[in-house]
């Protein structure tokens, strides 16, 4: 090692001052001659190279320094300062080379100073940053997020690749810029985006800027832009950075949700506005629990959903209404709906007549009800109205009954009063005349008795003894008898194939019924036409509904005419006592009422079907005795 040569070449510069200069580097530093040998090394260099001074000074360079020299040589020699970064054996170094100047500070020397700084820590941070940036790019891609950056100094705008995809434009044809961008924005949102974008470019943050873009292919997408300002190391803003995210699906879900909420609100309001009480009970472990009651329900029962629990629907039914509750409980147990006319109990203990309509709600058709909807209607007014109507109908019927009976009896009393008076006066002089008067008086009395009987039959206070009789001969005889009194042009046809048809009836009543129906049929036909009488067995297999015929054997008696028919208004009244359509002086209006009450007395059912101008068929069902 020729440090003395160094001293000479440096114009007699003190070696120790050169060494001092070299030691002023904290990092490893060497002085290298033109043959690439280290002529002097500082202590840091010796530590770094891990060798004693005699194995460094005067020896060719090795390690990171030799690699470094290679690179300097490839760059065409060292002129002035050269700064390179080099990775070597697990660490990053910044190597600097500069010419060693003479003592005057200007004259070049054949030596170079070389220093190596370990920058591994900085490098690691740089790599971390790149890794983060790469991760960020990947994340933004996954999040359907584009990013952009606007450098304020030159208004340079950079878009991430996904930002192009998101806007449906190509990197090759689309040049990002304020006006160019607004073209992509939905016309309705342009003013808003322009305002927020301009503010962002001025250095204001922009969070949650939601707007629509229209891609060149016409697709409308909702996006959200979030922008912030980037600052340099001295804290001055120099750029805007933002993300743009496609939120179309979220927007649609949000709109769907909003629509759903709106509908829910309407449904809720509708339920609240319902004049009927509505309550919803949901299935819980121990039965059903009130979930909701509407305003009308609360008004009717004074209960809300809290006060109804835990006894639930049961709360509404007074203890005295055991029967009603048992029917409701059975329906609930079987997950069935139903209508129940019940007495309902308010919270204060008062009661009111009500209709409870129970409707099960099934999550799955085969499973037990998960909820019940209860519709509650206050029947107080309806009951009052029905009672009033019934009363007025009773009064009307009573009026008709009394009027009709009065008319009949008055007419019969007239000769009784007049002739008994006159008869007394002619008794001595003209006994023959008196006898005639008394006959008329007697006949009138008997006719009056018949009227009273009819009334009593109707009222069923006068029930004759019923016995088991064969209807076949009874009906046949009655038809023959009835036919005799009819106009000549009226034909009566019997279709009676049976031999026996046993029923619990009275013979007189059977002929009364047949006579009445045949005469009505004849009157309806205006003197000409055919009356068909039928008598048949009828076996009812199964009784479908209450009000219909019960299962079992029946006898069906029909009387059919080809007459004028009965309109629906009249048909509804034909069984009313003293209701008649016949000309004055014909019939009392009691006929069909009497038939009705007789048939009812037999346990039978009477039914009339009629079409105006086509005729009428009266069907009587009588329970058959087998």
């Amino acid at each position, binding site marked *: 090692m020729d440090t003395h040569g160094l001293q000479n070449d440096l114009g007699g510069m003190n070696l120790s001052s050169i060494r001092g200069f070299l030691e002023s580097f904290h990092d490893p530093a060497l002085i290298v001659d033109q043959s690439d040998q280290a002529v002097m090394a500082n202590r840091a260099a010796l530590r770094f190279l891990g060798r004693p001074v005699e194995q460094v000074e005067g020896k060719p360079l090795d390690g990171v320094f030799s690699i470094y020299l290679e690179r300097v040589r490839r760059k065409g020699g060292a002129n002035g300062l050269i700064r390179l970064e080099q990775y070597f054996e697990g660490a990053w170094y910044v190597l600097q080379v500069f010419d060693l100047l003479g003592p005057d500070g200007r004259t070049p020397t054949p030596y170079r100073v070389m220093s190596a700084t370990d920058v591994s820590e900085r490098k690691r941070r740089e790599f971390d940053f790149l890794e983060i940036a790469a991760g960020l790019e990947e994340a933004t891609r996954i999040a359907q997020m584009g990013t952009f950056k606007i450098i304020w100094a030159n208004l340079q705008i950079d878009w991430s690749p996904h930002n192009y995809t998101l806007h449906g434009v190509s990197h090759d044809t689309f040049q990002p810029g304020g006006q160019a961008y607004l073209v992509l924005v939905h016309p309705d949102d342009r003013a808003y985006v322009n305002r927020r974008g301009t503010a962002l470019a001025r250095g204001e943050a922009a969070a949650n800027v939601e707007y629509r873009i229209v891609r060149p292919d016409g697709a409308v997408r909702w996006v959200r832009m979030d922008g912030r300002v980037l600052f340099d190391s001295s804290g001055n803003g120099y750029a805007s950075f933002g993300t743009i995210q496609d939120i179309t699906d979220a927007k649609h879900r949000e709109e769907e949700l909003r629509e759903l909420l709106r509908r829910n609100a309407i449904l809720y309001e509708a339920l609240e506005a319902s004049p009927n009480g509505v309550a919803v009970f949901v299935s819980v472990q121990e039965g059903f629990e009130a979930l909701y009651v509407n305003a009308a329900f609360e008004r009717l029962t004074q209960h809300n959903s809290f006060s109804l629990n835990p006894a639930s629907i049961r709360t509404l039914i007074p203890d005295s209404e055991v029967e009603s509750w048992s029917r409701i409980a059975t329906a609930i147990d079987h997950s069935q709906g139903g209508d129940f006319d019940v007495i309902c109990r308010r919270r204060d203990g008062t009661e009111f007549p009500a209709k409870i309509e129970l409707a099960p709600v099934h999550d799955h058709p085969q499973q037990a009800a998960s909820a019940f909807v209860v519709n509650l209607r206050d029947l107080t007014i309806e009951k009052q109205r029905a009672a009033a109507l019934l009363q007025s109908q009773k009064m009307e019927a009573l009026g*008709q009954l009394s009027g009709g009976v009065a008319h*009949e009896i*008055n*007419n019969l009393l*007239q000769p009784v009063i007049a002739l008994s008076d006159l008869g007394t*006066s002619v008794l001595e002089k003209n006994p023959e005349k008196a006898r005639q008067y008394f006959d008329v008086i007697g006949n009138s009395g008997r006719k009056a008795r018949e009227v009273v009987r009819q009334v009593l039959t109707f009222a069923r206070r006068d029930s004759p003894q019923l016995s088991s009789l064969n209807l076949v001969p009874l009906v046949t005889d009655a038809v023959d008898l009835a036919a005799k009194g009819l106009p000549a042009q009226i034909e009566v046809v019997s279709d009676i194939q049976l031999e026996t048809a046993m029923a619990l009836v009275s013979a007189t009543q059977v002929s009364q019924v047949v006579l009445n129906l045949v005469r009505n049929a004849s009157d309806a036909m205006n003197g000409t036409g055919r009356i068909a009488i039928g008598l048949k067995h009828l076996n009812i297999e199964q009784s479908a509904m209450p009000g219909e015929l019960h299962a079992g054997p029946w006898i069906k008696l029909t009387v059919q005419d080809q007459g004028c028919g009965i309109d629906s208004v009249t048909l509804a009244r034909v069984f009313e006592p003293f209701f008649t359509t016949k000309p004055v002086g014909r019939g009392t209006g009691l006929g069909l009422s009497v038939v009705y009450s007789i048939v009812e007395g037999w346990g039978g059912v009477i039914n009339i079907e009629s079409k105006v101008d086509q005729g009428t068929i009266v069907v009587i069902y009588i329970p058959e005795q087998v």
Partner: protein
Amino acid sequence: MAHILLVEDSPEVSLSVREILASAGHSVEDAGNGKQALERLKGGKFDAIVSDIWMPEMDGIAFLKEIRGTGNKVPVVVISGGAPNAPLTYTAPMAATFGANVVLYKPFEKEELLSALSSVL
């Protein structure tokens, strides 16, 4: 003594009224309903008519309308079987509306009919 047309479908009522009128010396002609009565009116002159309301073919109201419509002013006593105010017998007040001079409700006494008749003759 007057000549009277009696219009009544019930034979018993007809007989009893005819006998009352005869006992007072009036002569009587019978008709079973309004239609027959109109025929009788064509054939002769009557001092008064006694008529029922409820009758077949032509009732008392229709009969009254018919004769008053042709300007016949013969006095009419209507005899009604209806009870006052009963729904089916509103026809009695109607008879008065359509020109009956007197309305009598059955059953009436002999004197009631005779005094009603004398009041209109």
